[in-house]
């Protein structure tokens, strides 16, 4: 482990996992918080199954499905960018990070449209506890998406100058790890909020 905490850049077949200790610690802490949210949600749902099922039916699962596909594709683009960085293909890195960013933007727009439709139909975080959870969990996830997009944009802006350096590689792998984490979170959020209990 390097003194600055950065792992030596992982390469294909390397024994070094991607990401620095600090980011893995952050991901673990963040996962713990989300786990508490999910457990609290499930506990509340047990006590109000009819309310939660009825509220869930008001959500459009197509939005959830579209967002899932968007984030999965965006994660794939980040994987391609990390692989391209290992091969020092700066143009390819920029292209794939750009696509990842645009897909993140598509997710953000989709989410805002969904929120807007809900609010216009009179549904707010105060409507009932299901919607308190819906808005809270998806809003916190949304903030993670925005943070990830900022990091992706930063890496893309510096790709042409810094691809090939160990520092850039370690940073990009950290961003990739974070973005995959954001994706994994959504894979849990989508079925829990949109699908659980649907006939």
């Amino acid at each position, binding site marked *: 482990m390097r003194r600055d905490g950065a792992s030596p850049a992982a390469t294909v077949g390397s024994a070094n996992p991607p990401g620095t200790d600090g980011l893995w*610690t952050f991901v673990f802490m963040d996962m*713990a918080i989300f786990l*508490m949210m999910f457990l609290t949600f499930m506990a509340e749902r047990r006590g109000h199954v009819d309310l939660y099922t009825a509220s869930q039916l008001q959500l459009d699962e197509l939005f959830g499905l579209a967002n899932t596909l968007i984030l999965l594709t965006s994660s794939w683009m980040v994987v391609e960018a990390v692989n391209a960085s290992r091969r020092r293909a700066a143009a390819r890195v920029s292209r794939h990070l750009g696509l990842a960013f645009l897909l993140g933007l598509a997710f953000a727009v989709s989410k805002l449209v969904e929120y807007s439709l809900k609010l216009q139909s009179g549904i*707010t*975080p*105060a409507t009932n*506890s299901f919607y308190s959870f819906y808005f*809270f969990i998806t809003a916190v996830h949304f903030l993670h998406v925005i943070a990830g997009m900022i990091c992706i944009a930063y890496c893309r802006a510096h790709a042409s100058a810094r691809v090939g350096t160990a520092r850039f590689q370690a940073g990009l792998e950290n961003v990739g790890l974070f973005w995959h984490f954001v994706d994994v979170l959504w894979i849990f959020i989508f079925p829990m909020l949109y699908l659980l209990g649907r006939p």
Partner: protein
Amino acid sequence: MDNETKRLVSIAFAWCGPLFVLGYLAFWAILGHNVPPPNMMGMTSAQLIAEYYGKYQNDIAIGMIGSATLGMLYTPWSLLLATMLREDDGSLGPLSLTEAAGGILTGWLLAFCPAMWATCALLANSISPDLVRTLHVMTWIIYDCTYMITTIQLAALGAYIVLNKKQTVFPAWTGWCAIAIGIAFVPLVLMPFVSDGPFAVGGTWNFFFVFAIWLFGFQVPVGYYMLKEVMKHAQVTSPVLSHAN
């Protein structure tokens, strides 16, 4: 002030943290009958008097006055913490000062709000129930919805620990934990608008989880490493004193 005296002051400030936690649990939580607090948004004024202030008047009054006294122990503890977040040149940078500011404001809140609830308890039978409920609700909104003063304290501490690779007092996980806890406070914004469920004033998330992780996920681990640091320095200096004696 000589170094040994400074160390003793630091030790005293460090112990303010555990004293605050234990004292606040005893006075605010137990004596104040706040486990959980009454569901104020789902109660009428008459219910709040009958089921809370009227029923536990003396307990609440004593508990809240005790909380108003002990709540301010949070401030010296936070200020000692700020002195441990120095820049490379020994100065107190923006993160340290932000942590200090958050600690001062949080300490004020932890003392001021119980004083208001003590007022409600002491006057419960002599002023209009609507006025009691107004003061009670207003104070809870101040207590909970100004959570950002503690969030910025946590975020500043967390950022210092995570970004300053040279510091050796706090392990990195405490920094990430502090940031995560600060974010977990965000649903407190829902408290005034809901009358039941996990985000109500006494709800699973907005009361039990938020207070538990603030006390046991932030104060206990950070307080432990603070005490360890000041005691380490005290042990280094004490052989000099004992030798002199």
